[in-house]
């Protein structure tokens, strides 16, 4: 692996205030690409992305669409280095193919295991229905997507969607292969 310092287009230090939370303490742009993002707006998101959660492993680098960030924590502060990736498009394409393959395999496995999770509670079902209506507001989602969101089996999600459909709260937007895409009724 080669290190190319020219990939570095900016740096920032994100501090953390116990009352206010993360804030942009210092920034420096090394090239015009530094204007790629408004750091003041994103300081919080970067901090959360690298240090979110109380325990567990934290990322060292995150790749975004047009840049990547490598971050080094020091106490509560986080030093972010902004880099422009070069020549990784092909790698990303290949990795995307692998990811799609994994998603497909998982789908088949999910369909095979029809273990019902505990959604017998009426309150839970009502809460799921309420959240589905919020999720579908202004957009469309497929049955498998909704099933994964709520960790339901095929029969459970179909029971929920049928109830909502009967109450005219959702409707079938279109079919993609054998998959039904839902939207608000």
């Amino acid at each position, binding site marked *: 692996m080669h290190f190319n310092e020219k990939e570095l287009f900016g740096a920032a230090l994100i501090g953390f205030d116990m009352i*206010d939370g993360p804030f942009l303490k210092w920034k420096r742009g090394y090239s015009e690409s530094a204007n790629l993002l408004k750091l003041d707006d994103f300081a919080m998101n970067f901090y959360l992305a690298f240090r979110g959660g109380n325990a567990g492993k934290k990322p060292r680098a995150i790749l975004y669409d047009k840049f990547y960030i490598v971050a080094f924590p020091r106490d509560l502060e986080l030093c972010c280095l902004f880099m422009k990736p070069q020549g990784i498009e092909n790698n990303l394409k290949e990795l995307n193919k692998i990811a799609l393959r994994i998603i497909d395999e998982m789908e088949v496995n999910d369909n095979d295991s029809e273990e019902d999770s505990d959604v017998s509670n009426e*309150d839970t079902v009502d809460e799921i229905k309420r959240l589905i209506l919020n999720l579908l507001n202004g957009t469309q989602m497929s049955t498998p997507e909704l099933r994964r969101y709520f960790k339901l089996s095929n029969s459970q999600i179909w029971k929920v969607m049928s109830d909502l459909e009967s109450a005219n709260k959702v409707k079938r937007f279109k079919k993609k292969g054998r998959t039904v895409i839902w939207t608000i009724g």
Partner: protein
Amino acid sequence: MISKMLSSELHNLYKVSIIGAPAVGKTTILKLLSKNTIDRIYLPTHGFDLKTVKFDSFTIKLWDFAGQQGYLKSCSRDHLLGSDLLFVVTDSSPKNVLKSRELINYATHFVENNCPIIVIANKQDLAKNDGRMEPKRVEDILHVKTYGLTAINPAERNKLMNIIKKELEKIAKRRMKEIAF
């Protein structure tokens, strides 16, 4: 001079936290206050979001916490500390209002006794047939000052600002007294 400026800024700085069950409109309230475009697509907040809003002499740091239980237990507990004002948002449906009662009980352990807790009975645009409760009814159940709101309506921004302003003015007076003391 600088320390004087800093102390005056800190004096007018307030931490306002927003909690509530998933999909009740917490982030929409944050967007309403920060004049961001309100879209109708629900994307759950992960962890929390922070925005700074300035109006009159107040600088408000708004903490919008994710509604998911996992986040609430792992994240909001620590971050609720130091709140000057706590909003508990409900979508005004009977079940959600009852859940809010649990949430208020939970949150009271992590905020100071003098931190006002205000309930926002959101989604007042929904039909009564859908079970939407009036703010007064919500207040009777929760025993907490409750205001009705339709956060997806940008015209309601002033209403929300006035609610916050009213509460912050009380806190500012209290702070003045504490300083004088």
